[in-house]
C-alpha cells in the first residue's frame, strides 16, 4: 500500500507538471505567433510551399484563346486549384468553387489547372459545363506545372498573394469554410 501511495503522489505531481507545461507552451506559442516579425517567415526563393515565392507559369485556357500567367505584381490574389475530371473530391468541391468565384470574382482570381497529362479533354469540357465554371480552366498538358508545384494528390489548392507569395497550400477536398477563410487570409474579407 505504501508503494501505491508513493505512486499516487507521483501521479499527481506528474499531472501538475503536465498541466503547467501544457498551459505554458500554449500561452508562449500564442504570444510568439502574435509577436513574430514578418521577415522571419519570408522566403525569397521559389518553391510550392507557404511563405515561398510561387513558381511562375504560363498556361493556355481550355478554349485555347488566351494564355494566363502567374508571377509577381498581379492585380489580385489568386487561388490555383489543381484538379482532374476523374477525381471524386474534385467533383465534390466543383460546385463550391463555382459559387465562391461567382460571389468573389471582383476580389480574387481563380485558376483551375487541369492536370491534362492524366485526363481527357472531352471529359474536362463536360466537367466544366456540368458545374458551370466561369473561371479560367488552364491546361497543364505535359504536367510541367503540376510537377513544379509538387502536386501528388488531387485536388491541391494554393492561395497566392498579389505579390506572388504562397499564403497557403491545401491538399485534398477544399470546402466553403476554407475558401471564405482565404478571403480574410489575403486581407480582402469584409
Amino acid at each position, binding site marked *: 500500500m505504501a508503494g*501505491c501511495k508513493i505512486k499516487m503522489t*507521483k501521479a499527481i505531481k506528474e499531472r501538475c507538471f*503536465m498541466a503547467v507545461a*501544457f498551459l505554458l507552451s500554449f500561452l508562449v506559442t500564442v504570444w510568439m*505567433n*502574435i509577436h513574430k516579425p514578418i521577415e522571419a517567415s519570408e522566403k525569397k*526563393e521559389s*518553391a510550392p510551399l507557404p511563405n515561398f515565392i510561387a513558381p511562375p507559369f504560363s498556361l493556355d485556357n481550355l478554349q485555347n484563346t488566351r494564355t494566363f500567367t502567374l508571377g509577381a505584381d498581379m492585380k489580385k490574389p489568386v487561388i490555383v486549384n489543381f484538379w482532374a475530371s476523374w477525381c471524386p*473530391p474534385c467533383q465534390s468541391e466543383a460546385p463550391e468553387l463555382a459559387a465562391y468565384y461567382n460571389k468573389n470574382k471582383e476580389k480574387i482570381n481563380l485558376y483551375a489547372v487541369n492536370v491534362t497529362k492524366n485526363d481527357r479533354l472531352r471529359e474536362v469540357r463536360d466537367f466544366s459545363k456540368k458545374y458551370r465554371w466561369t473561371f479560367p480552366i488552364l491546361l497543364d498538358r505535359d504536367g510541367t506545372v503540376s510537377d513544379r508545384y509538387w502536386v501528388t494528390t488531387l485536388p491541391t489548392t494554393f492561395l497566392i498573394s498579389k505579390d506572388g507569395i504562397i499564403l497557403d497550400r491545401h491538399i485534398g477536398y477544399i470546402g466553403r469554410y476554407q475558401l471564405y477563410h482565404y478571403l480574410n487570409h489575403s486581407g480582402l474579407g469584409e
Partner: protein
Amino acid sequence: MLGGIAFNKVVLVYGLGFLLAYLVLRKQDRQLLSLLSHMVLITLFFYRFGGFFFEPGMYLKNPLLFLQASGGTREWLTGILAATVYIVVMKNRYALNIGKLADISAVGFFIIMFVKNLFFPIYGDKTSLPWGISINDGTQLYHPINLYYCLLIVILAFILWKSHEVFGKGRYFTNLMFYWGFGTILISHLNSQPIKFLYLTNDQWLSILFMLTGALFTFYTKGCSVDEPSSV
C-alpha cells in the same frame, strides 16, 4: 518507375515504417498486434476506396477509379472512424488490455513517423546553420524540420529506455504523446506556417492535441493495485 510499373515513394516509405514497427513489436502480444494491423489496414482501405461511399455514381460509371483515385481528409477520417468501431467491437468480444494496446500503438506510430521523417524533407524557416537543407540551388538554407522530428523521437526513446517504465501499462503512450506534442510545439517556432485558428497553426493545434491526449491518458494509468510494485 520499374519497367512499366510506377512505385509510389510515399507508400514504399510508410510500408517500410510499418514493417519495421511490426518487427520491433512482434515479441509483444500477438493478438493485440494483429488487431492493430487490422486497424491500419481498415484505415488504409477506406483511404484508398472510401471515395466510393461518397461518390458511388462516379465509381460505377468509371470502375477504373478504384485503381486511379485515392482519398482525402474525409476518407482518412472515415477510415479512422471505422478502425475505432472495429476496436470497440473487439474490446467487447475479447478482454483487451487497453494499456498494452495504447503502448503498442504509440511505439508503432513513432517508429513509422521516424522512418517517414528520415525520407521526406520538411523545410522550416531560413537558417545559416551548417545543417540547413536547400531546395533549389543551395544558396539559401532552411531548418530541416523532419530531422528535428527524428531527433526528438530518438531523445524520447532514450528517456523512456532510461526511465525503465513497464511496457503495457499505458505509460509509454502517455509519455510519448505528451512529450511529442511538447517537442513539436517547440519545433514549430522554426517552421512558420499560416495561422489557422486562435493564433495557432494547424501543426500547433495538432501538437496541443497530442499533449492533451497524453495528459488525459494519465487518468487511465492512475490505477494502482496492491500486488503491483511501483515501477515509476
